[in-house]
């Protein structure tokens, strides 16, 4: 019985930052740090940035990138960037973020999610049709949507509800389908409008 390791490369930032980050990733179970130019390429690229104006990596577009940042002010991001991890998160969150990105999912740190939502959501409310769709969600789906709106990762939602991560992923897929959205961020943008519009009806 051997654990299937996820190959990860580290880039961006200063050499000392990269060395520290590589050592941290290597200490997490199931993750293997490999050189950025390795063949086959790494499954995930973790990229250090300080601000949203830092240079982003130009690598093969099919390698998902997890950006380690403290600023959510990016105006645009490459399609490869599927994760934004705040620098104020715990080391264990890094492992979870890497696994989520390696599975082809998106990861957004709660603090960054809140910052992004605050930036984009200014006084918007649900439309009547959105409201009626949200009312069709099951109790469990509403619960998950509420936690999603607070910026919790899948692992944290699962831990909070004592469900497996895969179950939460299944519920999220159903939620996206019902809401007619295609990403976590779109679902979050809709979810944060709920209290203003229908409040405790769904919650």
């Amino acid at each position, binding site marked *: 019985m051997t*654990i299937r390791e996820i190959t990860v490369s580290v880039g961006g930032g200063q050499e000392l930052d990269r060395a520290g980050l590589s050592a941290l990733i290597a200490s997490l*179970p*199931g993750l293997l740090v490999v050189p950025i130019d390795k063949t086959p390429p790494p499954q995930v690229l973790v990229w250090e940035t300080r601000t949203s104006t830092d240079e982003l990596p130009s690598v093969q577009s099919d390698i998902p990138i997890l950006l380690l940042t403290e600023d959510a002010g990016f105006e645009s991001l490459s399609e490869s960037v599927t994760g934004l991890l705040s620098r104020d998160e715990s080391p264990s969150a890094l492992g979870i973020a890497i696994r989520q990105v390696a599975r082809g999912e998106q990861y957004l740190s709660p603090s960054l999610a809140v910052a992004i939502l605050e930036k984009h959501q200014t006084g918007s409310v649900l439309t009547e049709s959105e409201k009626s769709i949200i009312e069709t969600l099951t109790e469990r789906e509403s619960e998950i949507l509420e936690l999603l709106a607070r910026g919790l990762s899948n692992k944290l939602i699962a831990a909070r509800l004592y469900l497996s991560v895969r*179950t939460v992923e299944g519920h999220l897929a159903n939620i996206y389908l019902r809401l007619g959205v295609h990403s976590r961020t779109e679902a979050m943008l809709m979810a944060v409008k709920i209290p203003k519009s229908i409040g405790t009806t769904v919650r």
Partner: protein
Amino acid sequence: MNPAKTRLAVLGTMSDLHRQPISYDLHSLQKTIAEVSPDLLCAEITREGWERGDLSQAPLEVREALALVIASMDIVLIPVIPTPEQFPDFAPASGWRRRLVRTFDRFLRWGQIQANDVETINGSWFSIFCHTICWLTELVWTAKDRAEWERQNKQLVENIVHAVQRDSGRRVLVAVQCQRLHRLIPLLHAHDDLFSIVAYQDL
């Protein structure tokens, strides 16, 4: 949500031997959990303790091994014990019963020292040895303690069953002190309609 039947495995841990000044490598337990990588890990901590983040009452293997592994993986911990008492906490305070329990305890410790790894602790010879010693020890306890131990194990199984019913079709690993296994496994088999019990290596 998932029509597949839940698969459940029980992993006996070294338990109170970790309280002794014998240095055991908890890394092998961490490695086993990481390799099995269950969806849900039922562990010996109370729900109140886990939700407060207070691991002080939890067994050492939960504090120093399981909590660390699940923090960096997609494993969700389900706290399943109703009260923090462990097998040795039921030892009579004085008299011939105490002396006899201490004799049995010495046998058990000898056995645990011979079985210094996860595989042996969960192997057939140690299971027979441990089950016999624990069964004899329980016979010497007071009727009140025996009833309390049985009540605790029944409640533990109920909590496992609730977790399985809440999230069926998942891979569930139950990690408990080896002294519980001879009580727990027959109780779990009463729910064969809900889950298939398999060896932890086959989970």
